């Protein structure tokens, strides 16, 4: 298979890349664009560590061939904070212990950001459901739920 040109807008910046069309979006972000904040945990869409937002929807970037997102707008963890300040979700994760080892954190933060975009006042049950595709082995999730509840009220 030969490489082809793919256009992506990542964290507001446009890129034209020569890549294999079936390359995983995860690898293109990490290796072509050096955006290593997106993590690989399982490579099969179970753990959510590779979560990114594509055209307003969260996806597991390990399951997405890059050709499928040609022309899309993508937000990775590197694009979540504003120019001057962290996102409310990021602040809340720091304050409330939502991050421990940090490897699931980028995906978890993006899933929470996406939830609050769609539902600014989620209940704890909404949060559990929204984060169900993101696995964490450190926290037992309690502090992650607290963090998202806090981010909700501080928005």
């Amino acid at each position, binding site marked *: 298979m030969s490489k082809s040109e793919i256009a992506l807008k990542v964290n507001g910046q446009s890129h034209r890349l020569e890549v294999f069309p079936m390359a995983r979006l995860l690898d293109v972000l990490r290796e072509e664009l050096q955006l290593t904040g997106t993590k690989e945990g*399982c490579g099969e869409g179970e753990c959510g560590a590779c979560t990114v937002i594509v055209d307003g929807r969260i996806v597991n970037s390990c399951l997405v061939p890059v050709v499928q997102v040609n022309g899309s707008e993508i937000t990775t963890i590197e694009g979540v904070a504003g120019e001057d300040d962290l996102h409310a979700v990021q602040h809340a994760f720091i304050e409330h212990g939502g991050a421990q080892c940090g490897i699931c954190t980028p995906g978890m933060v993006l899933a929470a950001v996406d939830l609050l975009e769609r539902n600014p006042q989620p209940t704890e049950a909404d949060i559990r459901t929204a984060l169900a595709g993101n696995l964490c082995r450190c926290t037992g999730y309690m502090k992650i739920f607290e963090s998202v509840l806090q981010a909700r009220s501080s928005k």
Partner: protein
Amino acid sequence: MSDHPIGKPVPRKEGRKKVTGQALYVDDLSFPDMLHGATVRSPVPRGKIRSIAFGGDIPWHEFTIVTAKDIPGANYVALILNDQPYLAEGFVNHAEEPILLIAHHDKYLVQEARRHVTIEVDEQPAVFTLEESLAKKAIVWGEDNVFKKFLVDKGNVDDVWANADLIVEGEYETGAQEQLYIENNGAIAIARPGEGVTVWGSMQCPYYVHKALVKLFDLPEDKIRIIQTETGGGFGGKEEYPSLIAGHAALLAWKSGKPVKLVYDRAEDMVATTKRHPSRTRHKTAVSKDGKLLAMEIDFVIDGGAYCTLSPVVLSRGTIHAGGPYNCPNVRIHSRAVATNVPPQGAFRGFGAPQSIFALERHFDLVARAVGLTPEEFRKRNFVHEGETTATSQVIRERVDMNGLLDRALQLSDYHAKRERFARENANANGGFSKKRGIGFATFMHGAGFTGSGEVYLQSVVSAEATSEGRVQILAASTEIGQGTNTIFSQIAAEALGLDFDDIDIVQPDTGRVPNSGPTVASRTSMVVGKLVESAVIGLKQTLIGSGLLGEGYTPADFRAACREYVARYGPLKSSATYQPPPNIHWDDEKYQGDAYGAYAWAVYVADVSYDELTYEARVEDFVALQEVGRVLNPVLAAGQIEGGVAQAIGFTLFENVVWKNGRMANNQMTNYIIPTPVDIPPIRVYFEENPYAYGPGGAKGIGELPMDGAAPAILNAIEDATGQNFTRIPLMPEMLMEQYEQERNRT
């Protein structure tokens, strides 16, 4: 004024890097001209290697290929018995055993190439379970398949059986469990003959890796440098294993002359790396009519896999904890770690204790029923008190109030009312399929730090350095793996110096820079290493005061100024502290008697469980975790440790089933090895009792492993309350529940 950070929910030191994606894990690093490595593994569990063939349409001449013959030093992972080879030479002892290593610039080609190496092995008889190993179905290690045995003998149990009012026996089993840190194992190495070896990697114990590579390359200590990268969880799974993967990356780098990255994918990490030791525990317990323990005889066996790794130490901790927080005059614990032809089992949070505590706390509910007492009353009649002794005859010298903890935990969980209500509602469930509820608990303790003389043997060192900018740096090999080392050390140092939390920097563990503060294991980082941090920084302060540059009653600004001035006048200011054992700690390694641990955390965990008669699903609905852990250094981090440990223990109990097929994990994917997700975990309600420990920094004791211990027996005790069924094995999957429940139903 200092911000006195101890006891406060100070935000995680490296939190900002982690929430912004800036924290760099090993797979995020890259070097010019770097190769990607892969491991070629044994297709069978045991046998003699007959041939190795390189086939397929692969440009093999472009590859670096390493076999055992390329090893410059000793072909073993230096640890305890040094029986595990880096690369099998002629003979394999477990499925997925590393046989050779390959590397190439193209990371996709290297994976393709791995599949085109054909290894033929003349298979020999293998054993796959501890039962088969004990029965000597085949001798696969040493003379008798036994890596290690212990005997704890207190009083004389043999004098008791004949006249005891009641004897209760039981057998309990626990399965393997995958640590499942979300970041897989990985390492990057640069190595050149004549220059030395440098490895960056995801790890808990840089000096373990250092020790192993000194032997592997037969190089002087200063030619090996190990640097920990940000580590995405460990739980024991990155205690000893990184010595192997780091060595593999380094061997490829040594031969190729280029940087080599070796990072496992999830399937390889799950199929090839260590897991929690499966166990079998037999209990024989003598009690009097009034429910006093007279004798406990415990036979504890763990399956160590194909090589010894840390099994003797895991066995030790499991053995010592097997008798629990009880005062019994006669105790005999006989324990063995045995060999099987599965990949070596290794460290996992709790380190043998979750296995033996599961058995004990499940068994004691049965003993209570046999003697006609409630589970809580039976335990209350037998708890160890100050001045009484544990199974190893350790006299408890700290204030301990298990009765009080139990009462409070039962109250916090609404235990009595729920037990009564569930019994009524379960009985009224009028036929058909319904949900039943039950509530159960476990009472337990967990020793912090290395066992017995272990800490004295380690002789851990921590250094502190004042910088020319007036900041204080902590130098220790203790790693941040999510549990909060950076934050806790900063809190301890700032508190001891009267500085602000932000005045303290933690130096990334790098054996070229930091002293050996021992491994990051055994709930020892806060309590043992933290105390050394405190001592080391106090040394800095004393030097500054002694030099006349700092007066008593100084402010943080005075301290910073004094550091700057000192460094300007005299050069670097460094202070080191070496471990000193607390007084009156005596341990007899031969008899396994004495002060096994300097301090214990004490806990009562209560599980409220539902059981669905249609799906056979047991689900934890509410969980109360109450513990006495000395002083809580950081309430958010401490609660985070407990919640995470409880969730992992719920997984151990109800979700995580390693399916073995011919000595190999068959479900080595996150798709079919299931860990709890955000929708599976009940509210975990964490409560602390604080009873400052005189020899811990700020009064702290260790807590990291404690929460792994109590959930499994509490949950199975609750399931018995719900169903009336005595379940004795974990993981307790719905299909296992179904099998036993149906058998029982057919019988009655």
